[in-house]
């Protein structure tokens, strides 16, 4: 077993997991944080996207042991229902999510992008979302939403 101590959404957490446990499984099974989804388990779909020390990560490709001492942000740490993050608010208004399964990953990728670049171009947005697959084909409205947030912020 591997002992892991880390910060998840601002809280100190500890877990003891088998060494093959991925960050995704630890979040879901040890911490009951099911916002990050298992879509492919091989780093292709981005449904498991989380932010580790400010970097976008496919949590299915990172071992739990690798996040010892680090800071992890999941979708659950981004906001609450009555205090939405602007991305969640605009995604809701624009109807950017259909089935919603890719949503947590896409929203975290969008947050990461806007943290790096407050005024991204459409190619910048496409590039940032390139690791997040959506099978309901809702990319257009996601891109529109991210552009809207950037515009509102820069005004």
């Amino acid at each position, binding site marked *: 077993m591997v002992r892991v101590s880390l910060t998840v959404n601002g809280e100190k957490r500890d877990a003891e997991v*088998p060494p*093959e446990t991925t960050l995704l499984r630890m979040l*879901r*099974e040890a911490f*009951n944080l*099911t*916002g*990050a*989804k*298992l*879509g*492919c*388990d*091989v780093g*292709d*779909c981005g*449904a498991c996207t989380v932010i580790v020390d400010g970097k976008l990560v496919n949590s299915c490709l990172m071992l739990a042991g690798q996040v010892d001492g680090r800071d992890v942000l*999941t*979708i*659950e740490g*981004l*906001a*609450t*229902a009555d205090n*939405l993050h602007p*991305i*969640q608010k605009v*995604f*809701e*208004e624009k*109807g950017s*999510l*259909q*089935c*919603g*399964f*890719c*949503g*947590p990953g896409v*929203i975290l990728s969008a947050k990461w992008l806007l943290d790096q670049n407050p005024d991204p171009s459409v190619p910048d947005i496409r590039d940032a979302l390139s690791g997040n*697959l*959506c*099978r*309901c084909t809702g990319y257009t409205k996601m891109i529109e939403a991210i552009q809207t947030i950037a515009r509102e912020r820069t005004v």
Partner: protein
Amino acid sequence: METTTKTGTLVEAEELLRARTHSPLVPLPIEVRGPEPNRQTPAVGQRTTRPDARTHGLGQTKYIDDFYVPGMLYAKIKRAGVASARITKVDTSEAEAMPGVVAVITGKDIPVNSFGPSLKDQPVLAHERVFHAGDGVAAVAAVTEQIAADALEKIKIEYEEFAPVLDPLESLKLETPGVHAPSANIYGHKLIKKGDIEKGFAESYRIFEASFRTQMVEHVPLEPHSSLAQWDANGRLTIHSTLGRITLGRADIARTLGIPMSRIRIIATVVGGNFGGKNEITTEPVIGMLAKKTGRPVKCTFTRPEEFYASTTRHPIIMDYKTGVTKEGKILARKVRLVLDGGAYCSWSETTLGKACILCAGPYEIENLVAEAFVVYTNKTMTGAMRGFGAPQVCFGYESHMDDMAKALGIDPLEMRLRNVLKEGSLSPTSQALHSVVVKESLLQAAKRFGWNVQGAGQGQGALP
């Protein structure tokens, strides 16, 4: 009571309510508006938000795989890996002896080992015979998913392999061995005849023949199939599942487990993409049996590879078109033969076959038509429902054929279509009189919007706004 709903007028809702209830009602501000022909619904152009958008965005929507129940076991299914074979030996003893493995089942443990939305030709777990490489041959329930996956490798199965039938045209031949012998390989057929094609071809200026094929397509919902089974103290089974058609699924689960439908409760929550691929049961009877055997809740979630080889896919279709036209490009006669590759099991093939056959003439007025469709078994991943049920495949066929003919006749492809499209009152291939037909208007508007025949447009130059 006499009420007539006039189109475009208001009905006294208050009166309706009063007549049907015993206690006096406070008048409600209800307006019942009848449909207004040829008028756009007021919903168009309105902005609305999805009721589930908030929980989606917060990551709080619970999909099936997000449910974890105390004491829950994880199930994994061993796949055959061979396309056609007889199972000669099954040894699960080594897997059963592994620490953390709680139960192992095989095909012999399933009370009624056959199901399907129409033909009951699909086993829950292959028993004696394997019909395609994705067939499940054994299932394990263990305390962790990793142990269940490791246990699959300890299950020893010996096969006597047969030459698989892989080509649908080969399968169509009567001398080809039956995939499900003694049943025939052709398990569905439809024939549509209209007018006199011999006469139509005889009067044609030119006759064009072409053959088209489409490939197998997987739905790839972002959320893999998942289900969670629990038995209660009174012998009732509750299954949380990604199933789209829960009532149909319940009938199949009742059949395979040999218990009445009234003992089964299916709970389906928000689905993470279906596209037709989650319309029938997959793992439900397996986890139902494992949960019964272990007395514990059991969950099974497909791996991404399982989505490809153990769930349904879109039917590949081989389409042979023969079309007779006048010099001006008016279609006089058309003969179509469709061969649908059904894969190992029927699933929704009958629906797909019917739609493909009815729609294969395209949105064109064709007085003389013969359309014939066959669906055949092959030792491949089964095909089933997927958006459009066969319509997208034949659309690729008839529109490609149309472009080829227009080019050969030197007619603009849009003009060629306008000369043949269905009009108000046209008869469909099955002689249904069609109403509200706006094919011509739609084509003209589309051509105008994307700049058909405008210099530089429509040439892969990114002409879209």
